[in-house]
């Protein structure tokens, strides 16, 4: 098994183990011998797996760097974080909906009382946890809060976690009554608590940070700025194509950290990032003052031309998705690597780095720039890549750009028999 698939495999095992313990306590024939035990059993499984998913979601949000190797990068970890977070809510929504069926057979009033807090202390804890989780995930999925506000609301997942733990361990169930299950869920929950303490409560102390000073703010066009920083002490050690989280500590800018691709070469003294004005936070970055401090966490990501099996590569950048390729091109070493960079923008004016790439391609015959302006050539297609770069099957592909563009290119490549393992993409969807 490839190392980057181990993470998904471990998640599957961690979710399957509660079911194994649950089955080992009481034989299935007794669990499913009539209507009420069947309903109880389904409700319990939904609750157990939903809780396990929720805890794993919290563990994955801790940005532990060693986990990147087992998932294929932080963006893949966040994919699992979103996936499990959403489905834990689905499982936990159906947990009481199934259990209430056994009360409906007695009386509608008893079923109604099951949903009302206060009837039973530990059921009440479960109700508080579920209602808070519903609220916080509605904020996350369906309401477009500013990132800063959303991040504050997301910290209240600790409240959900606290009440969910009380509900899980103290309500009469297989967790409270069966020692192996109690030990397993205790282990999982302990990891979750440690991850929450590490990231959310003591993150400012425990998470390693690099301290830089903002030296220059270069306005590249009306929407794009380059921020140049120098290290105050220890320099961050990164691979070309990786990204960092930056928290700027100046007046007029909020302090929450945001991810940015590094655009400087590995050999450069200064650290550079390119920012496009995409919203309320990035709009303010153009007004940063030089001399302010930048707290940096990272680097993260496996999106680097050095992390691929083939040295014959095609890089496809859309719009501001060019940023990781700037670092990769600046760090490019002609060591049997052969790269075609497709630089795609809507208009020619948006192609603000074509001069730098042209200079690199002049110096390195194995690095070719292919400008692809949609207004002139239309949207890029894999057929256009075949026409210029030739046979696709021995190449590795690096994609970074708008989600729809990456999805289209990926599906076209797969349609032309390119293996999924040869397609690398960078999604900023934190």
């Amino acid at each position: 098994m490839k190392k980057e698939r181990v993470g998904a495999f471990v998640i599957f095992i961690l979710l399957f183990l509660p079911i194994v313990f649950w089955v080992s306590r009481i034989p299935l024939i007794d669990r499913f011998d009539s209507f009420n035990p069947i309903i109880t059993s389904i409700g319990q499984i939904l609750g157990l797996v939903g809780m396990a998913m929720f805890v794993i979601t919290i563990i994955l949000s801790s940005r532990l760097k060693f986990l990147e190797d087992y998932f294929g990068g932080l963006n893949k970890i966040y994919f699992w974080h979103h996936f499990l977070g959403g489905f834990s809510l689905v499982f936990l929504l159906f947990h009481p909906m199934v259990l209430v069926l056994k009360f409906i057979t007695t009386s509608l009033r008893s079923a109604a009382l099951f949903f009302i807090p206060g009837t039973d202390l530990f059921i009440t804890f479960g109700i508080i946890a579920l209602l808070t989780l519903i609220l916080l995930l509605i904020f996350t999925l369906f309401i477009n809060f500013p990132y800063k506000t959303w991040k504050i609301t997301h910290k209240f997942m600790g409240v959900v976690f606290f009440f969910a733990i009380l509900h899980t361990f103290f309500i009469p169930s297989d967790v409270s009554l069966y020692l192996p299950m109690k030990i397993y869920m205790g282990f999982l929950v302990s990891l979750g608590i440690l991850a929450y303490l590490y990231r959310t409560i003591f993150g400012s102390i425990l998470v390693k940070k690099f301290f830089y000073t903002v030296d220059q703010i270069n306005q590249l066009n009306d929407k794009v700025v380059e921020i140049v920083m120098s290290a105050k002490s220890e320099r961050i050690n990164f691979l070309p194509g990786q990204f960092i989280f930056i928290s700027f500590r100046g007046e007029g800018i909020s302090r929450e950290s945001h991810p940015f691709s590094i655009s400087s070469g590995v050999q450069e003294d200064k650290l550079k990032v390119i920012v496009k004005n995409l919203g309320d936070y990035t709009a303010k970055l153009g007004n940063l003052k030089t001399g302010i401090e930048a707290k940096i966490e990272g680097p993260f990501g496996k999106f680097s031309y050095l992390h691929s099996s083939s040295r014959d590569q095609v890089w496809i950048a859309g719009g501001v998705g060019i940023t990781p390729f700037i670092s990769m091109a600046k760090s490019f070493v002609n060591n049997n690597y052969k790269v075609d960079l497709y630089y795609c923008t809507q208009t020619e004016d948006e192609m603000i780095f074509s001069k730098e790439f042209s200079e690199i391609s002049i110096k390195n015959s194995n690095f070719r720039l292919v400008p692809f302006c949609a207004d002139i050539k239309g949207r890029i297609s894999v057929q256009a890549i075949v026409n210029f770069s030739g046979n696709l099957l021995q190449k590795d592909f690096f994609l970074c750009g708008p989600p729809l563009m990456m999805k289209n290119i990926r599906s076209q490549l797969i349609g032309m028999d390119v293996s999924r393992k040869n397609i690398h993409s960078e999604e900023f969807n934190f």
Partner: protein
Amino acid sequence: MKKTVAVSLFIFFVVVTSVLVAGLVFYQNNYNNKTENFTNNINDSIKVTLDMSEIKKHNNINDCYMVMNNKVYDLTSYFGSHPGGDRAMVLYCGENATQAYATKGGEGSRHSSYAKNLLAQYLIGNLAK
């Protein structure tokens, strides 16, 4: 995934709202009559005093009396609704189930306060001393 969550949330709100409205409206509409009848029934029933020899006659799933904390309950109509299954209950028909009720048949946990309120509806009398 977003669609799955949205559909699940919709189902959840529909189910919870329906159960709450049906349960509480049903309860409100029938509260006075029910409470009155229930109280009268309990008051009438509570006057009944049964000894263990009488209780032991009601020892099966179709006619099940149980003693808990010196009170006698007719749980015949509750079969099919017990979350722990009928098997857990039928062993105690015609018996003093105080200990079993307190420990959930020896599991060591107590019944919830919700279960206690539910049990009160099945009270029929006191155990003769």
